[in-house]
């Protein structure tokens, strides 16, 4: 016969008002197996917990039921109290008689009876509880950061500065991301490169940061504290150990007309190139699609001849390296919605009416950034792409693709209102006699100093704002772009003859993020943005323990938000890396391997990839059968495998089928 203690809490008046807690205590004392039952005003208080501890010892209790608020509130509190008194904490159950009884009922007699029944079920459950031990796993005290934009840089530096090694993987030839290409930043108009490049140099020189540029994460195995990462180092055709970054190769390359990725095709680069002068690492790569030598296998070879270090290697190939890490930050950033015709997602159809890709002087916002950047292809002089003229009328169109259920994405890209206001200012500061026009749906400028900034663009720099959409842009013979739209506040159609049109296109996650998320088993939404574990309370955690997210890979974000989130992710990583072990709750699934039919329905259903295919062998190593096996470190105890298992071999420790049946039976 078990010896179970039942402790009924009055929760001040919260429970006691509707439930007669004293009557409950005396009635549940009659349930077989219950050794003692009592009520108290505040069971979670120090005296309340003291009462539990004292009774566990004096009554030699082997199970405890607390009838109180939701287990989400205080299960941990009561488990700790039990443990302090020498009782295994998994032999403590909570019967929720507040949220599920007193708060939702008014009939005192009926509510009191229901409380008794709820406790009766918990007693049945605790009688079938087993003492469980939490799992402890050693930790590899290093982190992986995927993506070397401002979020990845911030996360890497924070983790490295706290004393842990960081592996930073960036798929482009240089770190810096989108921010390295921006001209000036809102709301202070400080130069983007001036504030970012020192951080990039820090990354490059940090003794605890191992940078893999021009590399991608190929495969991920393992679990929190013990990830194994396979990294593909793409062939650079330049030996990084020999190259000094002198520039003899790219200044002598004869192929100078390749559209520069960094300038979003607003400028050109050579076939062997560094993306921009401040690149980290400041080592070139050869574009194998463009280089004549690599395409034909012979000829040219000028860069090889020019290189005094002998660093050019035309026979370079992709290399694979493995790294072990204990935690991962995903900071893969964003790309832009494709406003031209060809779309990669169903339901998106581009904006043929704006003629992007057809009219040279219709550009997107990142292209505009390059045209006004001091380090841009025009040296900071705003020249329009078609003929190099300085545009006297520029039309900015916001929400191109954003907030558009018909053709684009339904969400707000959040940063466009601000950078469009910034664009109008930068334009006015460069072209004093020019006029900026903005078509907008709403101005969303929440943030420190943000609305003031937009007001400045309108009031001091004279940007004309029209609340309405543009229906069509046509190109006239004189080279003018005729922009026709509506001013819904004035109730008038507006026609503007523009020299340049800038489209504030919607933000989307960077390409390839879905494949990466699949490798990591991290959830993502229908647009490819990575999913956080809880939108409010766990904003940088993912559904996978030890994997965190930062920056625009999660949702459209500006620089301050990305940096803040990166630091948050870094601190979560530090929590893991600063301990020697990671502790995992033992309330996880377990598979009875002798009866498992090895159909692996559970392995396919498991959202955490916690079930592996394994073999049952005798102690001498003779093969007996195949089986599914739960990795208790990865399992989150959701129970999906239990419900899907056709042979009933999967069970959840702490909430077994047997316990559920016992609870139901106790009610009959």
């Amino acid at each position: 016969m078990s010896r179970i203690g039942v402790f009924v809490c009055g929760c001040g008046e919260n429970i006691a008002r509707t439930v007669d807690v004293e009557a409950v205590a005396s009635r549940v004392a009659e349930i077989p197996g219950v050794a003692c039952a009592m009520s108290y005003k505040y069971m979670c208080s120090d005296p309340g917990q003291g009462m539990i501890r004292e009774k566990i010892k004096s009554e030699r209790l082997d199970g405890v039921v607390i009838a109180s608020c939701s287990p989400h509130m205080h299960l941990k509190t009561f488990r700790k109290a039990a443990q302090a008194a020498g009782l295994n904490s998994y032999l403590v159950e909570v019967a929720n008689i507040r949220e599920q009884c007193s708060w939702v009922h008014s009939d005192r007699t009926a509510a009191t009876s229901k409380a008794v029944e709820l406790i009766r079920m918990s007693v049945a459950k605790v009688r079938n509880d087993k003492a469980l031990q939490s799992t402890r796993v050693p930790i590899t005290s290093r982190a992986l950061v995927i993506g070397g934009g401002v979020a990845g840089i911030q996360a890497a530096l924070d983790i490295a500065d706290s004393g842990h090694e960081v592996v930073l993987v960036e798929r482009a030839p240089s770190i810096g991301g989108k921010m390295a290409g921006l001209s000036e930043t809102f709301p202070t108009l400080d130069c983007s490169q001036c504030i970012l490049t020192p951080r990039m140099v820090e990354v490059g020189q940090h003794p605890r940061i191992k940078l893999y540029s021009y590399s991608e994460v190929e495969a991920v195995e393992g679990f929190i504290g013990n990830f194994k990462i396979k990294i593909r180092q793409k062939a650079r055709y330049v030996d990084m150990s020999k190259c000094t970054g002198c520039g003899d190769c790219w200044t002598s390359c004869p192929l100078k007309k390749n559209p520069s990725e960094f300038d979003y095709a607003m400028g050109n680069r050579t076939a062997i190139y560094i993306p921009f002068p401040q690149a980290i690492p400041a080592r070139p790569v050869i574009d194998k699609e463009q280089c004549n030598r690599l395409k034909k296998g012979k000829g040219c070879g000028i860069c090889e001849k020019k290189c005094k270090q002998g660093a050019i290697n035309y026979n370079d190939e992709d290399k694979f390296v493995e790294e072990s890490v204990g935690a991962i930050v995903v900071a893969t950033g964003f790309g832009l919605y494709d406003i031209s015709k060809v779309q990669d997602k169903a339901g998106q159809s581009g904006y043929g009416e704006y003629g992007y890709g057809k009219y040279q002087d219709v550009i997107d916002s990142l292209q505009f950034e390059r045209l006004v950047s001091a380090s841009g292809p025009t040296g900071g002089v705003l020249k329009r792409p078609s003929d190099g003229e300085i545009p006297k009328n520029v039309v900015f169109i916001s929400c191109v693709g954003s907030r558009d259920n018909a053709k684009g994405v339904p969400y707000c890209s959040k940063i466009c209102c601000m950078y469009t206001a910034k664009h109008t200012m930068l334009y006015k500061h460069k072209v004093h006699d020019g006029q900026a026009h903005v078509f907008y749906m709403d101005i969303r400028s929440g943030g420190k100093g943000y609305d003031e900034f937009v007001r400045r663009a309108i009031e001091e720099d004279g940007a004309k704002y029209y609340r309405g959409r543009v229906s069509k842009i046509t190109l006239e013979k004189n080279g003018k772009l005729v922009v026709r739209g509506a001013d819904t506040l004035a109730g008038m159609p507006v026609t503007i003859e523009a020299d340049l049109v800038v489209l504030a296109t919607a933000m989307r996650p960077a390409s390839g993020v879905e494949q990466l998320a699949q490798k990591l088993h991290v959830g993502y939404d229908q647009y490819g943005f990575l999913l956080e574990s809880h939108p409010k309370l766990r904003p940088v955690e993912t559904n996978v323990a030890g994997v965190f997210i930062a920056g625009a890979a999660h949702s459209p974000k500006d620089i301050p938000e990305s940096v803040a989130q990166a630091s948050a992710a870094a601190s979560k990583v530090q929590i893991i890396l600063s301990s020697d072990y990671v502790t995992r709750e033992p309330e996880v699934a377990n598979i009875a391997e002798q009866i498992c039919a090895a159909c692996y329905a559970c392995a396919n259903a498991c959202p955490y990839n916690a079930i592996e295919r394994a073999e049952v062998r005798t102690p001498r190593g003779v093969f007996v059968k195949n089986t599914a096996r739960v990795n208790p470190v990865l399992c989150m105890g959701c129970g999906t495998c239990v419900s899907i298992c056709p042979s009933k071999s999967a069970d959840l420790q702490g909430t077994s089928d047997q316990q559920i049946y016992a609870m139901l039976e106790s009610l009959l």
Partner: protein
Amino acid sequence: MKVGYYPGCALHGSSNDYEQSLVACLGALDVKLKEVDGWICCGATAAHSLNSKLSMALPARNLAMAEKEGFRELFAPCPLCSMQLLKVREAVKDEAVRQELSEVVEAEIRGDAQVINLIQLFLNVGLDRLKAAVKQPLDSVTAACYYGCLLLRPPKIAKFDDCEQPTSMETLLAAVGAKTVDWSYKTECCGAGMTMASEDTVLNLAYKILDNAREHGATSLVVACPMCHINLDMKQAAVERRYGKQFNMTVYYLSDLVGLALGLSREQLGIDRHFVTEPMMGNH
């Protein structure tokens, strides 16, 4: 090839030159048009501004009549007619709507006949066949293809070409050897029925279209809509008077140009019945 033909009011009335052109041109391609028995008005703009159910029932009846005759394809040369038919065809995918409309029009609507416009009909004939049938390449034609508003819109109903930057007419004309220009007003509004209510509006819109086509080097316009033809051809003299600019721009139906390439005469195609008849091509 036999195709169900829904002429609508225009092709039997004010735009019977369009019908003449179609019959001649398609006949030369061995496409026989069989008029749908008992067709009625498509509802045009009048019906849907008065009564939504009426605007569905009128084209529904026409669709049912065509399906009763077993046509797999129903050709409606007027874009407004074809849009109305397509609208109903889309709506009857909902079984409840289909049953209700069938009851209203006292005929079973299945919604399985394909509704096609003139461009689609030519594309169904095939670019290769068209190329092979050319007897008189249109070297001297430099046309601006004008699609107007309804041929491609609303895109969810029309489901044809790119409604902002269409290219299908250009592809067709290239096949019969005509040059086309890239211009800006391919899908702008011509003013349509406003020609009766507000002539000023139509003259202004037609002027912009004619002027932009001319600016981009076109010597003629090509349309696939009776209403567009009226506003650009019949009203052209009024436009010229109002804006003091001579265009003398022949406005062809698409079937006119294809017909000319197939060796038909201007008279056979009814081009001589247009208002602007100044031949822009020396040898025709």
